[in-house]
């Protein structure tokens, strides 16, 4: 089963993303900030990471950089979940090693269609 790590500080967004993913048959693990996400990534392996950018404690960009330093996450797709459509944020994400991005507000079907591009 495809296992996805979902990192977002907003409970409702995280719940919705996880619900959407679970409804489509994915297994999800949640984290509420980058640090928690990183800790979970260190103790478990994932097929995909979906992370918000703006988070307390550790933001999504830093999380992405940290994950890429881990041998087991070298090739793992990492998608940034962001409302920021500006090219700047996307570039920062790419520079940090992100695979791509998902733009909030998300539509459940689109979310699933988009993540099928990487898993």
């Amino acid at each position, binding site marked *: 089963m495809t296992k996805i790590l979902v990192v977002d500080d*907003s409970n*409702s967004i995280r719940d919705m993303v996880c619900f959407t993913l679970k409804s489509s048959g994915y297994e999800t693990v949640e984290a509420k900030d980058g640090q928690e996400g990183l800790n979970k990534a260190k103790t478990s392996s994932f097929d995909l990471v979906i992370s918000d950018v*703006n988070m307390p404690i550790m933001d999504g960009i830093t999380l992405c950089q940290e994950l890429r330093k881990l041998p087991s996450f070298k090739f793992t797709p990492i998608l940034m979940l962001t409302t920021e459509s500006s090219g700047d944020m996307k570039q920062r994400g790419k520079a940090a090693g992100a*695979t*791509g991005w998902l733009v909030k507000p998300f*539509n459940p*079907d689109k979310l699933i269609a988009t993540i099928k591009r990487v898993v």
Partner: protein
Amino acid sequence: MSIDLSQFIPSFLEESFEGLELMESSLLNLEQGDDETINSIFRAAHSIKGGAGTFGFNNVTEFTHLVETLLDEMRDGRREIVQNDIEILLDSVDCMKLLIEAIKNETECNDEKIDITTKLLEETLNTSQALSTPTSEGQSAETPAPSDALIEWSIEFVPDHHLVQTGNDPQFLFNALAALGEVNIEANASDLPALSEMDPEELYLQWHITLLANVTEDDIKEIFEWVEDECKLTITKKTATETAPIVSSSEVNKTNSDSQQPEQIPTPSEEPVAKSEVKSMKPESTNKPVKAKAEVGSIRVGVDKVDNLINLMGELVITQSMLSELGNDFDLSKVERLNAGLEQLLQNTKELQESVMRIRMLPISFAFNRFPRLIHDLSKKTGKQIELILKGEQTELDKTVMEQIGDPLVHLVRNAVDHGIEPVEKRIANGKSEQGTITLNAYHQGGSIVIEINDDGGGINRKAVFDKALEKGVIDGSSSLTDSQVFDLLFEPGFSTAKELSDISGRGVGMDVVKKNIQALGGRIQVESVEGKGSTFKVYLPLTLAILDGQLVRVGTEIYIIPLITIVESLQTQAESINRVSGDMVLYRLREDNVPVLPIYQLFGLESDATQVEDSLLVVVEDDGQKVGLMVDDLLAQQQVVIKSLNENYQQVEGVSGATILGDGSVAMILDIPGIINIAQKKARNHKNNNINSANTEEVTP
């Protein structure tokens, strides 16, 4: 497949309100260069916008977008943080609250405040020193309308060698292309190095793809969106009228410099060709979320509280198994162990009860956190300088009590600002600091929680209150009242000593309502004031509405429960203090008070041990300043009882507020003290009338 997200609307709303509160309190504390605070405000706005967009609450999304843009400029240091902008943002928070409340109530929000604030925000953003404002989201409007004809696209995809190291896999890109239409994919392995030179983490293949589909170039580019910087991508339209290749804009330079590249592809006979047949996927239909269901009250509980419950539950199970083992072959030698086990059970139950009750408890900061904003607004409106001090914010209070105490507290705080704190000139004249202080403090005292609203203002003018009460006919001129009795007059309906009405604390309709609301919660309010020094309003509230501390009393064979909070004292009657006014009306002299005595056995028609006051115990209870002595046969234990409503199973009985189940399984009624005092007063009035009547008849017949 349809995924219905509407079940998440309530949690989105709850989270949004939390976010708004955080925005408000952070805005009030915002100072120049405080990055963490502005970041947290931005994050809150950002989450609300994201959630609202997902559910299609477009008015919230649009409005919040403006707010977010302004915050973003502040966050990036492109805009200085000035007081005026903070005011606009505070207004914006109010607007967002209105909008989200409208969603919660499923109504339309047409408040003009939103239009005004929107305009203000737009004006502010237009005058921004910002270099650029982020563009709005969504697809560009330039996308030409699609026609029905299939177009044959030719795509050259030459990924950089490190492409897979960011987690992108060409296979998935091809899958996505296949979802658009018919694809034919050919791989070109000419760049593949010798095995010894190959880095397994690099990608050496290139692809040529033909796509037959009714799509625009943008649709194709969208698929390659994530990799456009990590590949050479050339998209050419084949069957279009124009034959010129449309080159991906970011690639113009590169493609020109490498213009010979297509010719370098080796002949097909030498290259291993991988033809991928990719299943075409049907585009999924989107579905709109259905209307949110009626809101069910929810409560957020810290994980530690739940963990604690589970832990206690575990201990209870251990005790239970210990006791059942003991019961298997019990003999008298094990009585001691049985007692120890029962003791443990008692302990477990008590802890479990406390923990369960704690689930409903929230820190009082939930009720307090609206006050910084209120004070901010009020001090702007009145021109008074006020500092607000919050204490004991972590004191926990039942959720229901919390929700209902909010409005009375707001009223008391408004009063403190309006009537308590003096204008600056007056403060200076009285030798006080310019800045007035209002302190909100919450703490536990016995079984109740006390909320204090203290101001260092002028205090209550005793004489003004007294005169006003005289004028209103609440008291007569001969009354000699203690200070606290005078201050209690403030809570009389229609009482206001402010000479001019202000829109802050209204027209004196408030204080009696405040008192009623607090009493409805089983609480009481008390005023202390020193003229020239300030006033303190103390609100006493029960910790919870579901459990009360009760005094068990016996009348005949029945057991009743008197709420401990209402009891002034319990005493053995002294014959010399008993006064029979007339007939069966009895007054008991309690220091300077005459307390009417109400025999419970008469009230409920029971047989009791003692029918005379002299032989009974008296429990003096108080409500609303009225004291009544309840005649009982015996005082039993004091204990916490769980309140069960009578209405669900029986009917409302005068003088009884509910019932509870005692340790031995029997049912005991909880006495409704305000109701009983009412009965006593009615009785006293009847007496008076009867006496007057009988007096009249005596006069008529000399």
